[in-house]
């Protein structure tokens, strides 16, 4: 049976900060859509969403999650963009034995050293990004790198994973500059990257930071002087903000693109009608994870965490977001990823037509085998 | 009718008829407050052009407060203050000064970071015909000697001289002087007496707040005696002897 007679999902996200376009209010919409599509009730109990802005601060997130768990009967925490937030909420989820459905946070440690039994990592991770964008660039001859890295867990994780790929491909890393998160003026970091002489300047950051770094590089004539910028995590919303003129030709790894097939187009169109924007992978991932969670409750008739998580692992993930996705015992949801290239303005046929898919990266390749996971509870 | 009312109405001033005199300052029913405390309780007084009057009284009688109220330096005041024919009870300090009023404050108010000369030159001209800096240095040779010293380095007495000199440059013709002999050597006090006499001859109107009765007595045309925020009496120069009792009572001279 359902505890407290209601299934409550708490969406904790960045509502107005650096990642608010990537995740933000759109993820709350996605969660609401998932519930509506599910019919509003599960196993006879109503489903509710609560949401809060964690401002990308771990402590705000942890306090909110703790309070939700203690006083509001929240059963699952969803979205959790920003790795530090996800990790903080993991602590709370572990203590309270609640489920954490991570979509926005990207660091691979979430299903490795930092994993918890009820922490499920849905959309992507930095390893997948490295395998996608990183190795594609190395293959094109980008064999010396300099990183501009956001100074927190996610940046480190991304730099670490890409470094592994670069070195495995025979390239080398010449150095890295850590920049504060979020940062606005990248000129000094860009100059350092330039001075390093590396062929590729890898941006181990995301959202507003990536956009600003690309702009600074343009201002200081980096690209015209022959170095290349590699955005290691670029979202559709970033391409939208940069404009195709600036972004064209960028390689990026996507977990989702609205224009893949009829199903994705249909869902994305509905999302667009509500928000005025096409969804990012993070937003689609929230829909997918919430839906899968509800399915497991429906199937087991209980909202008991252990039972539900077990059921979620048992069932394949199969929706417009992921086909034949598998939820592994370390919490990783393994599904196919896409290597895409940003279209030139000429190639684009209309608004939001930004990407062409270069290659589908099979889930196994993107996320590696379970045996590589260092999660102690796998 | 109290003595104060009588005199403020300008009925008899040393036998001359009031209509021949121009009122430079006329205060009626002036009340002033420091926060909640009521410092002036309805002051009435009139000062005519070219006159030198004193405000006498014990510490805390309200003399400084009267000057500050006239100058517009006390926010909460009521009643009427007519300065050279204009009502200024609602005016702010700079507007009042611009009517040709010069104020020498009790605490001297030398600007510590400005030099002596800068202090002298600071107050803007409020009327034509002020003294020149050279003239002032002649009157106060100590200042000439220290003209480049910053205000904060001056001795107590030098500051007092500077505060006085400063307002003579601006062309102000109504001077409000608060305890200007304070801390001065007797020689300088004598000198100041001469200066005041000279100013009077030139037609200045002067309101003088003094503790030093010996100094004030021979200079003044009239003495207003204050106590507890009231003007309790007004003594003409010619009545000094007869009114000794008043001085004994309120000043314990």
């Amino acid at each position, binding site marked *: 049976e359902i505890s407290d007679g209601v299934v409550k999902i708490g969406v904790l996200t960045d509502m*107005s*900060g*650096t990642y*608010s*376009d990537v995740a933000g209010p759109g993820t709350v919409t996605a969660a609401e859509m998932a519930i509506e599509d599910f019919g509003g009730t599960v196993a006879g109990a109503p489903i509710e969403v609560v949401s809060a802005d964690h*401002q990308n601060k771990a402590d705000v997130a942890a306090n909110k999650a703790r309070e939700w768990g203690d006083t509001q009967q929240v059963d699952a925490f969803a979205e959790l963009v920003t790795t530090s937030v996800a990790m903080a909420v993991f602590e709370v989820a572990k203590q309270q034995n609640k489920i954490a459905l991570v979509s926005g946070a990207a660091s691979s440690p979430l299903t490795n050293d930092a994993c918890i039994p009820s922490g499920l990592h849905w959309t992507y991770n930095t390893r997948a990004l490295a395998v996608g964008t990183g190795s594609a660039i190395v293959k094109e001859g980008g064999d010396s790198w300099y990183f501009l890295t956001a100074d927190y867990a996610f940046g480190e994780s991304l730099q670490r994973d890409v470094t592994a790929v670069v070195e495995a491909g025979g390239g080398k890393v010449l150095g890295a*500059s850590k920049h*504060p998160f*979020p940062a*606005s*003026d990248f*000129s*000094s970091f860009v*100059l*350092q990257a*330039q*001075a390093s002489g590396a062929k590729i300047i890898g941006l181990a950051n995301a*959202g*507003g930071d990536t*956009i*600003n770094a690309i*702009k600074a590089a343009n*201002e*200081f*004539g980096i690209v015209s*002087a022959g170095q290349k910028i590699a955005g290691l995590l670029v979202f559709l919303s970033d391409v939208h*903000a940069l404009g195709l003129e600036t972004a064209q030709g960028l390689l990026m790894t996507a977990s989702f693109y609205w224009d893949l097939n009829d199903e994705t187009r249909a869902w994305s169109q509905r999302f667009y009608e509500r928000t005025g924007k096409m969804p990012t992978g993070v937003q689609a991932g929230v829909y997918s994870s919430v839906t899968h969670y509800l399915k497991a409750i429906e199937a087991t008739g209980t909202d008991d965490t252990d039972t539900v998580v077990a059921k979620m692992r048992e069932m394949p993930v199969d929706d417009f977001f992921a086909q034949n996705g598998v939820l592994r015992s370390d919490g990783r949801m393994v599904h196919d990823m896409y290597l895409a290239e940003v279209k030139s303005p000429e190639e684009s046929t209309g608004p939001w037509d930004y990407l062409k898919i270069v290659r589908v990266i099979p889930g196994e390749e993107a996320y590696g085998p379970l045996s590589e996971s260092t999660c102690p509870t796998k | 009718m109290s003595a104060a009312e009588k005199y403020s109405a300008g009925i008899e001033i040393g036998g001359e008829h009031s209509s021949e005199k121009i009122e430079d300052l006329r205060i009626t029913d002036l009340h002033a407050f420091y926060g909640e405390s009521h410092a002036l309780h309805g002051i009435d007084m009139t000062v005519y052009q070219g006159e030198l009057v004193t405000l006498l009284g014990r510490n805390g009688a309200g003399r400084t407060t009267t000057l500050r109220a006239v*100058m*517009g*330096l006390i926010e909460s005041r009521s009643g009427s203050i007519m300065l050279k024919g204009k009502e200024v009870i609602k005016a*702010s*300090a*700079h507007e*009042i*000064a*611009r009517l040709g009023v010069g*104020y020498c*404050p009790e605490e001297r*108010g030398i*600007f*510590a*970071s*400005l030099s002596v000369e*800068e202090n002298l*030159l*600071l*107050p*803007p001209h*409020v009327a034509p015909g002020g003294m020149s800096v050279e003239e002032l240095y002649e009157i106060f040779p100590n200042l000439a000697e220290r003209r480049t010293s910053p205000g*904060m380095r001056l001795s107590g007495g030098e500051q007092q001289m500077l505060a006085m000199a400063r*307002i003579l440059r*601006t062309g102000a013709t109504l001077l409000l002087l608060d305890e200007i002999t304070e801390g001065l050597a007797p020689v300088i006090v004598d000198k100041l007496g001469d200066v005041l006499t000279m100013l009077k001859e030139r037609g200045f109107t002067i309101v003088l707040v003094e503790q030093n009765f010996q100094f004030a007595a021979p200079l003044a045309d009239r003495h207003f005696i204050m106590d507890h925020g009231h003007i309790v009496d007004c003594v003409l120069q010619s009545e000094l002897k007869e009114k000794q009792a008043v001085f004994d009572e309120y000043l314990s001279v």
Partner: protein
Amino acid sequence: MFSDLLGIAPQVLFGQLLLGLINGSFYAVLSLGLAVIFGLLNIVNFAHGALYMLGAFAAWLLGKYLHIDYWGALILAPLIVGFIGVVLDRFLLRRLAGVDHLYGLLLTFGLAMLIEGLFVKMFGASGQPFAAPKALNGGVNLGFMFLPYYRAWVVVASLVVCAVTWYVFERTKIGAYLRAGTENPKLLQAFGVNVPLLTTLAYGYGVALAAFAGVLAAPITQVNPLMGSNLIIVVFAVVVIGGMGSIMGAIVTGLSMGVVEGLTKVFWPEASSTIIFIVMAIVLVLRPAGLFGRTN
């Protein structure tokens, strides 16, 4: 050469020095505004960062809704924000006359929270892009680095504004009024100087300087509601280093702290965010009144 001796590529050294100078220009203009305001109101204007942000936002909004270009905004935004400053002074700061100066700091701190909170609410905490004017696109290759024209313009514009301000405040009577007003505004007013007007204008001018810096910064840092809030603390440290005493002090300290920061990025990158505070601590030990401050 010198730089080669130290094992540093000239490209890096000069590049960071130049960027330091650019940052220093912002420090200078901002600390100058603080100095002017402090001079007459005896208030440490904590809202300075928020007003700097307001300048950038004014430029952005002017462009977005009224299609006024950068150059127009560079003139208009400081005027608008200066006017806001005048209003703030009239209706809020004026009421603090006569109470401990600390309350001025606290009031402006509250103001900063209010303004920044409002803008975060309206525009989100992420930045709004703001393009540099077309005429200043591109740059020149100096050999050791590529200098974008826009950045060069920032330095020149700041220096000009600083010089003009210095002239007005130190070489005209306004300067003497400013200093006298700091010590005893009441008395200055009793001499016939319209001190309330002077204070209001000083606040308006100081605030307009902040807004000017904000417009200059917009193309570099984007327009972000929180762009001023961390900067202001660095500027406070600059002010402590220079001492609140002089206009010149504000300008010189501002520029040199930018350069010091740039050099630190080359030689000791880990300390670049703290170097100004370290300098401040050293100055406090050696010269508590600051480099240009008057001891009393």
